[in-house]
């Protein structure tokens, strides 16, 4: 078979993504915007990405970036309130009760904890009289907003929404207000909501529980080992003032990237950006993450006993998404599990029939050295041990012989088609632009990455398997069914 789409270096031909008429704008306060007009239906997609996430947390306050994300939907000094002064007047009483509660809990004083919990709930009920609940959401809902939401990852927090394009100015009005005048009302009930989110995603989910245990074992020092949703005991201890000071530290406009994509007039959008977002004062420069995961000195294994059928996760330490090896590692994951003809799918699912599915990915974030992680579940009566051994055999084969040329061609062709498919959706494009600017400092880099992927050779992939996917460098997490269940 011949190659479908001959590889050409970036200098010879720009990819469809690089040709997009993106207008970069940097405001005086350091906020960076990417404005992209696109023909089509009269809609517009907005993404705001703040460079803060789980890696910017410490033990004792894990989950704070995600909790703050929830609080930024609670409104401002004018949106979400009937009487903001009356509300703010009650905050110190609640916060003082919470501070005392944290000390009482540490001292094991259950009676005081219960009494103060009730006191905080009563105070929040008193404040609720002055609250116009969910008004921020309601304004956008009435405007026809779609998909209003946010997500917190290890390295960033993204706020996103889509609007009919004649409502573009509304977004600026609300976003500028949110950046300048947020009020963290209904804090304690929202904190309870986040604990319920943790119960749903982790504490009643075998997959969530195993993932958390796996990362904690693989990363002994780097914050990638800590769950973004936070530990339950930390969530119960974080105070409103902790969240406020975290907000001041990380939510300056100089730590934000905005992407706006859709049926818009870029001149008008730039004017609104300067008028509404320009006056937001610059924040401090957030401290960098300095923790470095030490080289792993031997295989680590962790077992989770759970009332569920067995499953397996394996992770090897690999460099970050901006490292020179990143393209070859991405190709390696695709050779391993990208599609039905990939090596591990073929071996485990189709030939040996010992697993229902096998998935490889790079994570949990791309900014710092990460893991190449593989997850799989055995089909009974086969075991995680059999699955694990088969995975190692395939990796050893790849490390010894390298991939075949037709495997790489398949992956390259998919990358070429993917470089066109990925620019179909306005919201998807807004996410890619924001992430590329945030991670690489250049919105075009995400599209140039496709060229780098296509340039990866069989030798490169073999070297990745040989150098990184070693026994000493791996952490294995196994979920085993609890006895008696």
């Amino acid at each position: 078979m011949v190659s479908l789409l001959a590889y050409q270096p970036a200098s010879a031909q720009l990819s469809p993504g690089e040709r997009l008429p993106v207008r970069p704008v940097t405001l005086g306060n350091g906020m960076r915007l990417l404005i992209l007009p696109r023909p089509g239906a009269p809609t517009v997609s907005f993404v705001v990405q703040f460079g803060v996430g789980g890696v910017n947390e410490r033990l004792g306050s894990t989950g704070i970036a995600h909790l703050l994300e929830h609080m930024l939907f609670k409104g401002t000094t004018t949106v979400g309130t009937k009487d903001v002064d009356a509300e703010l007047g009650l905050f110190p009483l609640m916060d003082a009760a919470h501070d005392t509660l944290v000390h009482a809990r540490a001292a094991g004083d259950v009676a005081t904890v219960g009494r103060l919990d009730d006191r905080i709930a009563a105070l929040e009920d008193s404040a609720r009289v002055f609250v116009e609940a969910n008004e921020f959401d309601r304004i956008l809902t009435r405007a026809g907003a779609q998909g209003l939401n946010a997500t917190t990852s290890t390295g960033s927090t993204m706020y996103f929404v889509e609007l009919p394009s004649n409502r573009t100015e509304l977004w600026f009005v609300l976003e500028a207000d949110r950046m300048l005048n947020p009020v963290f009302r209904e804090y304690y009930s929202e904190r309870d909501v986040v604990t319920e989110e943790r119960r749903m995603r982790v504490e009643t989910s075998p997959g969530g529980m195993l993932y958390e245990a796996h990362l904690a074992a693989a990363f002994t020092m780097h914050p990638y080992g800590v769950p973004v949703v936070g530990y339950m005991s930390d969530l119960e201890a974080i105070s409103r003032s902790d969240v406020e000071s975290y907000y001041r530290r990380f939510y300056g406009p100089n730590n934000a990237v905005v992407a706006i994509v859709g049926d818009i007039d870029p001149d008008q959008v730039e004017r609104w950006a300067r008028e509404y977002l320009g006056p937001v004062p610059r924040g401090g420069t957030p401290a960098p993450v300095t923790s470095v995961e030490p080289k792993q000195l031997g295989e680590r294994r962790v077992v989770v006993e759970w009332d569920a059928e067995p499953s397996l996760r394996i992770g090897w330490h690999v460099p970050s998404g901006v490292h020179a090896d990143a393209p070859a590692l991405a190709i390696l994951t695709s050779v391993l599990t990208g599609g039905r003809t990939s090596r591990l799918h073929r071996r485990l699912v189709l030939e040996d029939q010992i697993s229902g599915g096998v998935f490889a990915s790079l994570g949990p974030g791309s900014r710092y050295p990460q893991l190449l992680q593989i997850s799989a579940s055995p089909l009974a009566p086969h075991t995680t041990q059999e699955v694990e051994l088969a995975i190692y055999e395939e990796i050893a084969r790849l490390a010894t012989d390298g991939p075949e040329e037709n495997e790489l061609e398949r992956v390259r062709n998919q990358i070429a088609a993917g470089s066109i498919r990925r620019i179909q959706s306005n919201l998807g494009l807004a996410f890619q632009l924001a992430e590329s600017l945030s991670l690489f400092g250049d919105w075009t880099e995400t599209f140039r990455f496709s060229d780098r992927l296509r340039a990866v050779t069989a030798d490169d992939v073999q070297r990745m398997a040989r150098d990184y996917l070693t026994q000493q460098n791996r952490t294995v997490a196994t979920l085993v069914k609890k006895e008696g269940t």
Partner: protein
Amino acid sequence: MRGAAPSVLLVLALLASHAPALHGQRDMGRRAVEALDYPPIDFRPPVPDEWDVDGVPVLMIEDHGLPLVSVYARFRGGYGLFGREYYAAGTALPSQLRYGGTTELSPDSVDKALEYYAIQTSFGGAGEAISATMNTLVEHLPTAIELWGSVLARPAFDSTQVEIWRGRQLESVRRRGDDPGGLAFSEFNRLLYGDHPVGWEMDASDLSSERLSSQRLAEVHRRVVCRENLVLGLTGDVTWRDMRPLLETLVRKVPPCEGTLPPSPIPSIRDEPGVYLIERDLEQSVIVMAHTTDVHLADDPSYYSATIGNSILGGGGFSSRILSRVRTEEGFAYSASSLWTMPRRYDGLLGAITRTRPENTIPAIELILETMEGLRTAPPEAGEVQTAIERIVNGFVFNFDTPGRIVSRTMFYVAQDLPRDWLERYLEGVRRVTAAGIHDAFARHLRPADMMILIVGDPERIGREAIEALGPVTVLDVRR
């Protein structure tokens, strides 16, 4: 033949607001929001061209923005139109079309070809229809159509692939209890719908070699993948002139139907109020509650009132009452919503769903029931009605944001025998909803005291007495 498509010129000027403008002012917050002036949108959404290829309707929107083409196929027919003994084969059919090879190519060759040409396919099915889509770079369109057409119309149902599917399904049966949310929904359906396709849950007997085999798959395939059951859709960087011969070849591979499949049976939905308990030692209970209602999908005021009413009760996210009270006010849950299903042919369900820690299970249920009672006994506030209507009216343009969405939706209307202008009728119907109409809908149809309440959770931590106070308790013995 170019079909006569109904006019879908939308009056999107309705999106305009007439609030006074405050030019030059860059205020923010609520006052600034209220002062904004929105220009009208002048937008004529593309209307699919309608063609006919040997009796098969084809809906098409040309879209020359990117060098991609998508083709969509929808066949009437699914496991719900056959008896239980065909449940596994009917469920397996979509994936086995993709995985089982063709009369010309082995499964491995199909995999290699699709992946080599980077052709994306998806095959899926519900109880009454199966769907397949294919997306390709336009340069590979003839190859892609040829391959995809063979996969659809000339499958081999390779026995090894059938065995692999059986093994994975048996494992899914074994793992069913691992996800408390999924367990709650499947058990709730089984509880209410019994031996109706909606209530079926795959078990080992469905997966026997007699009920799931290459022959059984071929039998179901012959009844479903035939010409009179098919509607095709098409979007992308191609013209009808170029596309027509390719589709003619495709359609001619699909044989005429041998007969008409009967509609799925009308379910007899259980209506026995009380608590149904699945005992599990969990950190968070899953709660599903509902009773039957007889509001059906139709161009009728009661349907529109029920739709907007459900948005106010708990279907409209943070603007709805259930999420506001259960999540925002009490912090009981991350997610809480109402459900009001309104099938066309038979009765639906009205109820709610949430998850909360064991100790808050009963308070959350009581709060949901109290919230329901509030809407049954008094009309909603004018602002709530306005929010729910504006949400649909102002967001209406998103129904047209991609050609694929327009074509897929129109295919659904053709298959469901709904008028082509259904969406415009829907918009008009929604705009006419009043608070009195919603009150009437809830007063007639909502019966909080008659809910069947399923709880998956730990009765010791929830409190057995408190559970019993909700109504008669039935413990469901769900095997692991």
